[in-house]
């Protein structure tokens, strides 16, 4: 009904999306969580009086209290402090990993979708190969062989997630190519580069951008999993996954050790998922099936 009524028409695509997002509770919650996360990552050190790594054997395994709101771990370190310092790692890993995914995935997707033929065959076979190996299996293999450390986690998780972007972008480019405006651009004499950058790219970006937020969530989950398995950030780095792994043996002595880092991961991931979900719905309710 009334698919293009002028009232609706008066909004630009982006404005409409923003308006829809403002009324979406999930989007508000997501935005709130992300803002808090960025705030803690930037200014968290000024909030907490403790050092994240200093061991204090007088205060081992203390339950949550006023001075240690989330308790202390087996080395007497304040868990709240470590979680606050962990925000930086979560954001750093999430953004860096998605950066790799975005650059690699989007350019391969554009190439495959636009040129087709052999270029497409080669790229998509490569994606098939990558899709044949379960992501954690591959990430575990890569991280395991590269050795631990944040940097290697980023490489390992970065190496596996781009395939989703390639598929997504390629599908979008193929649908863009069926849009008459792309042929219309050729009809007025546009070259390949202009068509890709000016006409196709903007068309494909809406779902990709929404997916990016979901991608950050996934990247944080995977990297925490790697750290948890002992192939990522190494103790005493206050990375959430590593904290969990570290405190796992003490969980019968103190439920708080394993619980709160997990809550931190969950809330962060939930925030990015909320935001990405809302963004995706706002930009195009139909993209869900294309991924």
């Amino acid at each position: 009904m009334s698919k293009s009524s002028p009232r609706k028409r008066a909004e630009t695509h982006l404005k409409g999306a923003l308006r829809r997002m403002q009324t979406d509770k999930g989007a508000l919650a997501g935005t709130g969580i992300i803002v808090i996360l960025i705030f803690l990552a930037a200014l968290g050190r000024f909030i907490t009086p403790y050092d994240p790594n200093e061991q204090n054997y007088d205060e081992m395994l203390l339950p949550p209290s006023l001075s240690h709101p989330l308790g202390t771990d087996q080395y007497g370190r304040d868990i709240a402090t470590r979680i606050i310092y962990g925000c930086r790692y979560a954001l750093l890993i999430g953004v860096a990993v998605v950066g790799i995914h975005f650059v690699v995935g989007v350019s391969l997707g554009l190439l495959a979708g636009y040129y087709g033929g052999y270029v497409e065959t080669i790229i998509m076979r490569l994606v098939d190969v990558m899709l044949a190996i379960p992501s954690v299996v591959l990430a575990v293999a890569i991280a395991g062989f590269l050795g631990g450390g944040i940097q290697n986690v980023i490489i390992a998780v970065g190496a596996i997630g781009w395939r989703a972007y390639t598929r997504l972008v390629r599908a979008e480019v193929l649908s863009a190519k069926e849009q008459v405006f792309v042929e219309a651009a050729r009809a007025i004499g546009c070259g390949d580069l202009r068509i890709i950058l000016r006409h196709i790219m903007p068309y494909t970006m809406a779902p990709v951008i929404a997916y990016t937020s979901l991608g950050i969530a996934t990247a944080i989950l995977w990297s925490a999993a790697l750290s948890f398995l002992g192939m990522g950030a190494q103790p005493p780095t206050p990375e959430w996954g590593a904290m969990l792994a570290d405190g796992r043996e003490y969980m019968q002595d103190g439920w708080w050790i394993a619980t709160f880092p997990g809550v931190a991961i969950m809330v962060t991931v939930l925030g990015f998922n909320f935001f990405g979900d809302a963004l995706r719905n706002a930009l195009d309710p139909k993209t869900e099936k294309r991924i």
Partner: protein
Amino acid sequence: MTENSILLEIRNLKKHFPIYKGIFRSAAGWVKAVDGISLKLKKGEVLGLVGESGCGKTTAGRSILRLLEPTAGEVLFYSHGQAEPINVTTAPPKVIKKLRQDMQIIYQDPQSSLNERMTVGSIVSEPLLVHKIGAPSDREQEAEKLLKAVGLEGDHMARYPHQFSGGQRQRIAIARALCLKPKLIIADEAVSALDVSIQAQVLLLLKELQNEFNLTYIFITHDLAVVRYITNRVAVMYLGRIVESAATEELFNNPQHPYSEALISAVPVPDPDYRVRRILLQGDVPSPIDPPPGCHFHPRCRYAEDICRNETPTYRELSPDRFVSCHLADKLNLWSFSK
């Protein structure tokens, strides 16, 4: 240059699409979308290319502009008073780019032929930018002038396509097509998606612009009433071939090909007293992958004889400027609609 000189000549143009099958994706067959069409187009003429869906009219239009690579044949474009025409089918990319200034296209669906992410101003002036014509401010002025010429306001420049109705979008598309001052415009079902009252507005506009800018049109459509209204000459296509071409009124009054006859008789007439028994064709259009032998139309033709089943009819000039591709053309007494 006289008004009657040739602008475009199409010689035996073909476009076949391969159908891939199997592991090695070898071509298992061909869709003969356009299978050898020849036409001449004079300057200032409006040529209608009509036929039902799948007859190849749209593919023909795109092959003429070389938005699709033709499989065979020649498209000769006589521009800039040169004695030697440009062969569009073989011209190098540079020449093609230059040629885009002379040949433009308007599409059927104004929803998808305009880039949603660009403002109307930049859509209309993009051709100038691509061909590096004028300074930015000139281009903007030109775009504004064009928008006014097609009946829109100058202050629509900063808006986006989705803020306009279907008819207005089609006006924007027309402004873009006019931007490079082309000599030839191919209108591919340009008014088919529009509501009746809006369609009439756009048809009138196209007619006005033709006089104003001295344009030549190829009007691709399935709507015979529109064709009769706007064209001087018509070519009727069936399964990738032209079965008949003639001056518009000639064709509508005295079709010489059984398909044209049936096609015209099938069009509903907005007049309750016009009662006529229609010629009902049997069955559907056959697949262009495996068209019937002989005359493509023979399985549905009520006059078909043995020769039609076995021999492909030649496309011949029956009388001056009147071409038919039917074995029986001069023997049949087809329905005359001239009363």
